[in-house]
């Protein structure tokens, strides 16, 4: 009955809308025509007799034309953007472009890896998961390109002289960039629409091509922005000496590495947020199980990439110092030093949230209780490290407080504000989070290899040994010269990496053929865990915005550091409060847009529109259902019977 009524309504609604629109157009046209300027009516004169006024007006027009023709062309250096100003406009657009670009570059990386795992293990659920991740790409790719074009036009319009300079330096890179962009579009759409249409190896080849081309595009774009920070290959006045040197400048390769890793972490977190969004909207246990697993994998990817990120950050900072100590000290000890306290809050939150999610996840595994008792110790370690990392070197204090402390630094806490303490804290944080992963990994399992006891002991020894070594180096750093102290971060980082690799290797062999002590019940996780995933995605996005600001803002009053000076009204470095507001607004805009991407993507799973004559959709009552988002070629095959995702 309702269906028929709806159909009739729809039938009437079309013509009615057409008529209303037609009337509206006529009314608008009439309104505009009525207000058009018209010469007042004059009765025709018998003889046309030019008056002095007419002649004067004609002379004025001629003079104005002549003056306009004689005016030489002057290239504008800057143009103003209304209300927010040019810098904030460029800032917001560039950040949105980079966030979408990061997502578009990251998702194919882990989609390809997951698809490859599916091919290798012959488990179609991995293939399905990779396809589901890929679904997020096509709309995001369009948004990336749109914001890229927007950014280019805004740069040309608002910073014409500087953009012209940058284009003159990097003109040889533009054609390859455009060609690669075409190639990326070709690979991406073939990869997405060709899912299940080709031999798996051919499809994997497409995924590989997509990743290679995407990375190459990123490398080119990175050369432009890193050149602005650490220019090379140009004279003191900016004349180009070597384009290759301009591309391969001091910070190019560290930024490349840092961005690939950060993109994967960010992409994983956004994909996990998508899974959380779907989990919360899920109506069946099967859907919840699927999206719980997807969220877990997305978060796993994010945290796995996040762990080595501080090491890539060290390298980048080292290269910044190598290029210019002034730039390095402006970053860590000057105008931007307090920014790293904000960064510490963000990273601390990320570690806390990631660990909390893992601990909540333990609850979905039967027999996890013996391992859950360790959580409190991990939490204490994380909280302590967080506190050390967030302790500033100098404290905002009143005059009397400064007098009482005997200076701007606190007599005790001041020791925690230096790099020795902070490096130690972050390394212990990484080790602790790694331990959370290990604990999660071994829930519901028991090692049965004959050397199990030795294996456990070896893992514990490595972990404790490395933790003590890192702390020892941190303390030792207080007693040595700067030249020695700076170098101590290398053994700290190396030892943590060693611990992570060696303990994982032992773990893999230790739990080979392990006895199952409990089943993983996917979907049986508190809903709060899904909000944690969304919080992680917001925090990652905000962190990317903040670090993008410091990388760019570090140049201060230079467009190209030391070469092209910023003479605009925005040449000053804004306060951190202002910067964080811009970052926040941009993050909100990103999430509004990514929400749109999620919505568009979820349309894929909506039932197709059915005519009123067709039988009404019967709600699913527990029988085998096609799994959500299953590739069309798999429907009716594997998806007919729901399977629990692998642990």
């Amino acid at each position, binding site marked *: 009955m309702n269906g028929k009524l709806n159909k009739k309504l729809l039938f009437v609604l079309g013509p009615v809308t057409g008529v209303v629109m037609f009337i509206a157009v006529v009314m608008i046209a009439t309104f505009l025509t009525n207000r058009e300027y018209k010469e007042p009516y004059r009765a025709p004169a018998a003889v046309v007799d030019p008056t002095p006024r007419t002649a004067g007006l004609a002379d004025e027009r001629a003079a104005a034309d002549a003056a306009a023709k004689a005016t030489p062309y002057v290239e504008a250096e800057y143009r103003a953007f209304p209300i927010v100003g040019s810098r904030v406009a460029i800032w917001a657009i560039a950040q949105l472009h980079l966030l979408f670009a990061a997502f578009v570059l990251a998702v194919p990386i882990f989609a390809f890896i997951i698809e490859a795992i599916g091919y290798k293990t012959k488990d179609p659920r991995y293939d399905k998961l990779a396809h589901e991740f890929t679904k997020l790409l096509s709309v995001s790719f369009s948004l990336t390109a749109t914001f890229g074009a927007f950014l280019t036009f805004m740069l040309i319009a608002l910073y014409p002289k500087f953009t012209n300079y940058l284009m003159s330096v990097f003109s040889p890179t533009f054609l390859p960039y455009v060609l690669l962009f075409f190639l990326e579009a070709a690979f991406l759409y073939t990869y997405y629409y060709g899912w299940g249409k080709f031999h798996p190896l051919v499809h994997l080849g497409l995924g590989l091509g997509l990743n290679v081309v995407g990375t190459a595009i990123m490398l080119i774009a990175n050369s432009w922005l890193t050149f602005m920070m650490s220019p090379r290959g140009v004279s*003191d006045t900016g004349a180009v000496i070597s384009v290759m040197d301009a591309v391969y400048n001091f910070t190019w390769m560290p930024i490349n590495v840092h961005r690939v890793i950060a993109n994967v972490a960010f992409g994983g977190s956004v994909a996990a947020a998508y899974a959380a969004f779907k989990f919360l909207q899920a109506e069946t246990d099967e859907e919840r199980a699927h999206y719980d697993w997807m969220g877990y994998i997305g978060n796993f990817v994010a945290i796995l990439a996040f762990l080595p990120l501080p090491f890539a950050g060290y390298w980048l900072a080292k290269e910044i110092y190598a290029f210019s*100590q*002034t730039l390095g000290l402006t970053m860590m000890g000057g105008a931007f030093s307090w920014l790293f306290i*904000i960064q510490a809050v963000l990273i601390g939150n990320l570690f806390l949230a990631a660990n909390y999610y893992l601990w909540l996840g333990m609850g979905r595994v039967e027999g996890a209780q013996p391992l859950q008792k360790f959580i409190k110790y991990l939490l204490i370690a994380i909280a302590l490290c967080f506190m050390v990392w967030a302790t500033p070197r100098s404290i905002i204090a009143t005059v009397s407080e400064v007098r009482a402390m005997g200076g701007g630094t606190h007599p005790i806490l001041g020791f925690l504000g230096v790099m020795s303490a902070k490096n130690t804290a972050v390394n212990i944080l990484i080790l602790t989070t790694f331990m959370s992963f290990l604990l999660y990994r071994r829930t519901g399992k028991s090692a049965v290899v004959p050397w199990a006891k030795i294996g456990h002991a070896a893992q514990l020894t490595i972990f404790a040994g490395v933790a003590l070594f890192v702390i020892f180096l941190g303390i030792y750093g207080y007693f040595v*010269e700067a030249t020695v102290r700076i170098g101590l971060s290398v053994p700290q980082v190396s030892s943590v990496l060693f611990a992570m690799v060696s303990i994982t290797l032992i773990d893999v062999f230790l739990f080979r053929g392990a006895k199952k002590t409990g089943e993983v019940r996917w979907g049986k996780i508190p809903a709060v865990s899904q909000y944690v995933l969304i919080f992680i995605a917001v925090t990652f996005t905000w962190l990317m915005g903040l670090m993008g600001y410091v990388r760019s803002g570090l140049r201060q009053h230079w467009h190209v550091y030391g070469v092209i000076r910023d003479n605009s009204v925005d040449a000053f470095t804004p306060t951190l409060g202002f910067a964080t507001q811009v*970052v*926040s607004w941009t993050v909100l805009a990103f999430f509004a847009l990514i929400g749109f991407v999620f919505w568009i993507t979820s349309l894929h799973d909506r039932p197709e529109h059915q005519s009123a004559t067709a039988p009404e959709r019967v709600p699913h009552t527990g029988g085998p259902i096609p799994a959500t988002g299953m590739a069309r070629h798999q429907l009716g095959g594997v998806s007919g019977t729901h399977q629990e995702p692998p642990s």
Partner: protein
Amino acid sequence: MMIPHTIRIGGLVLASTAFYAYVGQMVPQKEVLPPQETVIRADLSTAEMATVGRQIMEGKGLCLTCHTIGKSGALRFPDLDGVASRAATRQPGLSDVEYFAQSMYAPDSFIVPGFNPGMPTINKPPIGLTDQEILCVMAALQSLGGTPSVTLATSHAYYTPPGGTPAGAAPPTDPGQKLPLLAPGNKSTTAPQTPPPPAKKAEE
């Protein structure tokens, strides 16, 4: 009443970003303006030069971003307290003025033992002090543990002022002497710069 998940998610995103923006308001707020051009009058006395030089050190010169004055312990860069007395004897054959000049025009020529190279070339971008500004900075450095003696007519291996005597000759005796070629308020470098001598190998 059950709040829809979409609203909850929106609320979480809003609250998280608002929290981080709030954290951003809690740290010290400082707007950093581009460095002001220092006006070096031609009739500056040595004492005035030291004052101007100190302002340059704290501002445009960015010296105190890295260097400290009166601090000890594990430092990243040499402390400048008492640098005037050390400068005269730091390198054999170099007076304090020549040592200061070398430190600023060719900073990698000599590295103070225990420290890493890192000093930028001060007369080039991004710092880009003029030769007169550098002379003022030298006066300020001489005042740290010594008595300033440089004038705007002082020559050194990297700079000869207009109408001044080349490096090696005795400096003018009258510290307040006016420079004929520098009009009051002139802030630009008017003399061609002497090319720096080839860099010597760092001691470390």
